[in-house]
């Protein structure tokens, strides 16, 4: 701590130190990205602040448990957001399962479950949330990465492992969604 200036280190240098078990480096990396990832998760996961924090915790726990997942040559920022977007995908899958399960309960006449109550509590009258939820999952992720987190097109392409042109094309097609939403 006394001899290492963590503030001057790049994300990649910090990550290598984290792999060696340096908890000061981990703390610095956390300080750089936790709030940004929390904002991303918040918008991706139905504006649920508690769920967003849980996801931030889980993401950094993964880094602690398996720091070797970061390969030399990787760039930390897209790597972190790639993990985050994969976690969101799993979150959506889980949520759709929960919704299906709820429907089934209603059909069979079983009393309102805790899950339903939770879903009800999470409904927030937030204009951005409604607008974002109308977007497809991948486009929502791209939109937030580009305009909330200011990631470059190259970084987004790296996250989705697709060419830059495809990213631009998908982002451009958001206008179609806007046109549709205005018509509605």
């Amino acid at each position, binding site marked *: 701590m006394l001899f290492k200036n963590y503030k001057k280190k790049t994300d990649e240098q910090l990550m290598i130190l984290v792999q060696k078990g340096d908890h000061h480096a981990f703390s610095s990396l956390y300080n750089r990205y936790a709030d940004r990832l929390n904002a991303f998760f918040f918008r991706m996961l139905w504006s649920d602040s508690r769920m967003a*924090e849980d996801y931030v915790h889980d993401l950094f726990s993964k880094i602690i448990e398996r720091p070797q997942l970061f390969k030399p040559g990787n760039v930390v920022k897209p790597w972190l957001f790639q993990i985050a977007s994969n976690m969101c995908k799993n979150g959506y899958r889980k949520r759709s399962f929960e919704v299906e399960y709820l429907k089934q309960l209603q059909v069979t006449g079983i009393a309102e479950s805790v899950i339903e109550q939770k879903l009800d509590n999470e409904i927030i009258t937030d204009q951005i949330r409604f607008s974002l939820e109308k977007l497809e999952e991948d486009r929502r992720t791209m939109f937030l990465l580009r305009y*909330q987190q200011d990631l470059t097109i190259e970084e987004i392409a790296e996250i989705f492992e697709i060419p830059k042109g495809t990213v631009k094309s998908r982002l451009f097609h958001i206008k179609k969604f806007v046109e549709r939403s205005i018509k509605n």
Partner: protein
Amino acid sequence: MENKDFDRLDTILRTKTYADLTNEEKAWIDEVLGKNGFEELSLMISSVSKEKKRTVRPAVKTELLREMKRKNRGVLATWLSYKTPMYANVLTLFFLMILVWTLLPSKEVIIEKPVTIQVPVIDTITVQLPSDTVFVERQVRVEVPVYLTRTEQPKEVDEKEVKSRTLGEDEALRELLVSGR
């Protein structure tokens, strides 16, 4: 074509409001998005970009750092703080004691102690002198310079050998004394 359009739209959306657009830009935006579409998208982008960060509770960081330290602590610390039930510790100690007791070979302890025993040696010499023997006593004194040099550790005198030789046994000495020559 689409990519160029995206780059242009991206730049305009990030930097300008509809009122700031030039006539040429307005015409293009109206064609691509329409005024309402542009304003809607512009609003969404500006709202979202304001919330780039969202504070996480400090408890999350504390918990994660604890997890990190727990995972990366040294082997010694892990061993020292490894929690085992007391009965397991007692049993381990008991078995260890039995093992040591059984496996260690029993050794006889021999203590060597040097003891000095003084044995008196008495020797008798019978000298028979002839009657005509005359003793002439003469004192000879010669001063001989002695130079002592030491090149190696002095050898210890073999006391056993010295003690075993008595005057009675030394034939040469006896002859000298008897003959007087």
